[in-house]
């Protein structure tokens, strides 16, 4: 029943896409479409979370290739991801009821938005390789159209082009992975794939292809370059969906292929995700720390979180391959918990960035400031999002990081030496990225929302509309609830963990005081609710005592600033000056950051200039050579356009002979 409802809702979403075209430019189009998307997403969410038996639900429809048909399946994993996608989808639709009303060209967004939602849902439900790839490509193309919505901007066109290239590359990798999995017999349904045992070399190759395919969509370094271009280019509710939700669909693809379809893992499978995940986390957060474009910063921070998720999945693979069910379940639970958390707070932060963008027309934090006065409510919820993403207790981001650390602490019992040496290094990368993340969001929030307004637009900003505020507050409440009652989340993930790693962490719901105890009480435990109530009660008690027994008088005056306050807001610390220490100490690891100081000699009246040059090592090291190679080949092939008639005939002859040779040699 839930699967039927889900499929009908997806069909309805596609129908809403058609309706959006029919409604055209009418005034009510935006509200109608987003309202319908919101209710359909809620229906899909309900279908995902409604209690059902442990047996997976399946359905087959006579669509697609005639000899395969379309298979759909709803099991514990797809149910979990379905809930995440539709939670994010409904929040984004609700937000867009307010946000989308100010859109200048709604007809470029409205048809594609429901299609994008439908595509993501279809990926999760597909149960055969053909359907999976079609849905995957549908999701890519509809989101590509959304990135291209504001195509008058040359930057957006470039972003969309890069995105299209990377998405095609990812789909190609997945296509080959499924081709290998299905074999020459061509059993494309997932049930057939699960039954065939793969030889070792083949499954290794599939793992790497899945890493490339899903990684390019999720933003794994070095395939991450499109995220910081495409996520800011799209309208904010779409950015939230792409960053918070679509990357999770990519994670789902990886988990489905590697944990489910590939069969029992070998220990070395864990090493590529662990290494790439650690590099991704570090590089992502370091790049985020130096960004001044708020949405770009958030996109880089998504890359960091994807790295953390891949590290946790890598740990789960390592434990699973050694038959350690409980640690594997812990790492797997941590990964899925972080997937859920990230979808919440990243959507919230992108909504906040969108609200700021709407109110001020600025994405550059260097031209913002003081928004806490002009947009107090947005400032409050955005602060909550910053706290959650910085992994600070008692919010939800901390719980999943804590679980990952607990999983790392179990890994000395892994028998392989290579893993024993790799895991501590990965642990350092995780710890560093967690600390840098807090710094990154202190900077983002401090420069954009605190201090004095750096531009007139920031000074005259108006509070955003109630729809957007409601969507953001809802997400913040969910962040808080997931942080205070993590045991329910862990128990929700348990069925999926049971299915894919063969074990599960102890049931948490029954533990007194709502603590979480992942392994044993003597090992570690955490109680977010208690920590939260301690902080709240001691803070209010202190405030009360201090006001009761100390002075209660409050006077306003100019800032002290060591006696030399300067009224001009440009004397404030800027985002780039805030990031300077980190750029100097850690920056050269991730990218080449150079400061240029042009100081004229005394007597010269031209102004001194200071500039920062930042070069991306990944772009320079990988993509520039590839681009050069492609250009070179194109130049060479271009010569064949200007041959004589004899030349063309010669080419035909050579082609014929070589084809005949191939046929002769082919066994």
């Amino acid at each position: 029943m839930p699967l039927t409802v889900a499929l009908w809702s997806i069909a309805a979403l596609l129908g809403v896409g058609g309706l959006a075209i029919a409604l055209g430019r009418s005034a009510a189009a935006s509200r109608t479409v987003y309202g319908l998307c919101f209710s359909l997403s809620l229906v899909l969410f309900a279908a995902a979370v409604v209690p059902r038996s442990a047996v997976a639900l399946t359905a087959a429809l006579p669509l697609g290739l005639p000899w395969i048909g379309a298979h759909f399946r709803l099991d514990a994993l797809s149910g979990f991801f379905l809930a995440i996608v539709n939670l994010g989808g409904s929040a984004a639709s609700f937000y867009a009821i307010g946000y989308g009303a100010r859109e200048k060209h709604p007809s470029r967004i409205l048809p594609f938005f429901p299609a994008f939602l439908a595509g993501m849902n279809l990926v999760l439900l597909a149960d055969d390789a053909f359907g999976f790839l079609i849905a995957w490509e549908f999701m890519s193309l509809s989101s590509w159209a959304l990135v291209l919505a504001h195509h008058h901007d040359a930057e957006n066109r470039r972003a969309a082009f890069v995105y299209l290239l990377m998405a095609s590359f990812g789909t190609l990798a997945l296509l080959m992975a499924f081709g290998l999995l299905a074999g020459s017999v061509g059993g494309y349904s997932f049930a057939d794939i699960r039954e065939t045992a793969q030889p070792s070399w083949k499954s290794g190759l599939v793992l790497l292809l899945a890493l490339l395919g899903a990684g390019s969509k999720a933003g794994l370094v070095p395939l991450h370059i499109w995220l910081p271009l495409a996520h800011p280019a799209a309208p904010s509710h779409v950015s939230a969906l792409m960053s918070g939700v679509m990357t999770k669909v990519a994670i789902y693809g990886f988990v489905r292929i590697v944990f489910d379809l590939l069969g029992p893992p070998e220990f070395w499978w864990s090493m590529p995700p662990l290494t790439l995940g650690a590099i991704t986390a570090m590089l992502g957060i370091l790049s985020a720390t130096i960004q001044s474009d708020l949405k770009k910063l958030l996109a880089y921070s998504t890359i960091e979180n994807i790295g953390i998720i891949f590290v946790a999945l890598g740990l789960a693979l390592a434990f699973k391959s050694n038959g350690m069910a409980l640690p594997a379940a812990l790492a797997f639970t941590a990964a899925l918990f972080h997937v859920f958390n990230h979808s919440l707070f990243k959507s919230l932060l992108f909504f906040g960035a969108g609200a700021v963008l709407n109110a001020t027309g600025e994405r550059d934090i260097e031209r913002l400031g003081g928004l806490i006065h002009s947009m107090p409510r947005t400032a409050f919820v955005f602060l909550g999002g910053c706290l959650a993403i910085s992994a600070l207790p008692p919010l939800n981001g901390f719980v999943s990081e804590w679980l990952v650390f607990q999983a790392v602490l179990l890994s000395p019992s892994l028998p392989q030496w290579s893993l024993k040496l790799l895991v501590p290094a990965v642990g350092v990368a995780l710890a560093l990225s967690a600390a840098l993340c807090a710094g990154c969001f202190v900077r983002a929030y401090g420069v954009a929302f605190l201090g004095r307004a750096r531009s007139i637009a920031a000074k005259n900003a108006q509070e955003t509309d109630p729809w957007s505020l409601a969507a953001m507050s809802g997400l913040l409440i969910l962040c808080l609830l997931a942080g205070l009652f993590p045991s329910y989340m862990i128990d929700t993930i348990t069925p999926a963990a049971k299915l894919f790693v063969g074990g599960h962490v102890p049931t948490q719901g029954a533990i007194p005081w709502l603590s979480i105890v992942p392994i044993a009480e003597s090992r570690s435990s955490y109680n977010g609710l208690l920590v939260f109530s301690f902080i709240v009660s001691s803070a209010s008690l202190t405030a009360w005592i201090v006001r009761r027994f100390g002075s209660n008088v409050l006077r306003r005056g100019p800032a002290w600033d060591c006696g030399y306050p300067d009224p001009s807001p440009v004397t404030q610390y800027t985002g780039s000056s805030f990031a300077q220490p980190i750029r100097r100490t850690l920056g050269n690891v991730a990218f080449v950051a150079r400061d240029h100081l042009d100081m004229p000699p005394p007597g010269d009246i031209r102004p001194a200039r200071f500039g920062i040059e930042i070069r991306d090592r990944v772009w320079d090291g990988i993509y520039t050579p590839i681009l050069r190679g492609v250009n070179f080949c194109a130049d060479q092939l271009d010569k064949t356009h200007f041959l004589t008639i004899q030349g063309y005939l010669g080419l035909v002859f050579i082609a014929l002979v070589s084809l005949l040779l191939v046929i002769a040699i082919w066994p």
Partner: protein
Amino acid sequence: MIFDFAAQGAQMILVLALAPLLLGFTRKAKARLLRRRGPSIIQPYRDLLRLMRKDVVLADNASWLFRSAPYLVFAATWVAAALVPTFATGLMFSWSADLIVITALLGSARFFLALAGMDVGTSFGGIGSSRETMFASLAEPAMIMIVFVVALIAGSTQLSEIAFHMLSHIELRVSYGLALIGLVIVAIAENGRIPVDNPATHLELTMVHEAMALEYSGRHLAVIELAAALKLLLYISLIACIFAPWGLAPHGADFRAMTFGVFAFVLKLAVGGSLLALFEISTAKMRVFRVPDFLGAALMLGLLGTLLLFVSRSL
């Protein structure tokens, strides 16, 4: 049950009551070592009382965040300090947070203080927040790696369990030494002591913690100062709990054992404060951009310790 609850309450009151005393004692010891007479040992209490009674002068454009940050910083630090075993292990709420949570609670306190530094929009506040962020971005991972070392040896991240393990398995390990040095470096940096920051200076370009709190006055400043004192006490009691857990009353101990534990704790604080004073007078403040090297050493020590334990459980 009531006794357990009272013991937990006593721990909260104890850390709060002793924190200014520790600060006063350290200042006194430092002054005596420099052959000055120094202020009275209870001077920090007088300072706090005086600040409490003064009016708050708030910058014109300070927001609600600026006004609530002191209490949040204080509450997070206080809760963290109350969760570190000082005179007894296995207190009533000790299981609600482990060492990673305590580290993260201090991270929350720092997060709010750094934001408060940027709220008024002065360049000093920004410089303080920016530098604090840089230090934290190395000190926090170093702390996590040290937690890993200790947790791998004791098989737990719960401080009570760790203290119990250390008491029952007295042994010499290379990784202990690495973790101890690392933890001391982190403690010095996190508390803004010489050579990382100078708590006594108000020289504009060298201060970090003071720069963030520059715009605070009156009761807000008092609460922030008290939080800083609590943080110092927290780190000393953390080092004592892990590396010198003697005298800690075990879980379910009677009143006598706890009284003994309190005396042992005061003694440990005195030793810690004197060592800190001795260290501070024997070294000079380093340039800001040397600090990452200093903290990087702590990070590498933590990593080395973890690696050793991954390779062999007996190192």
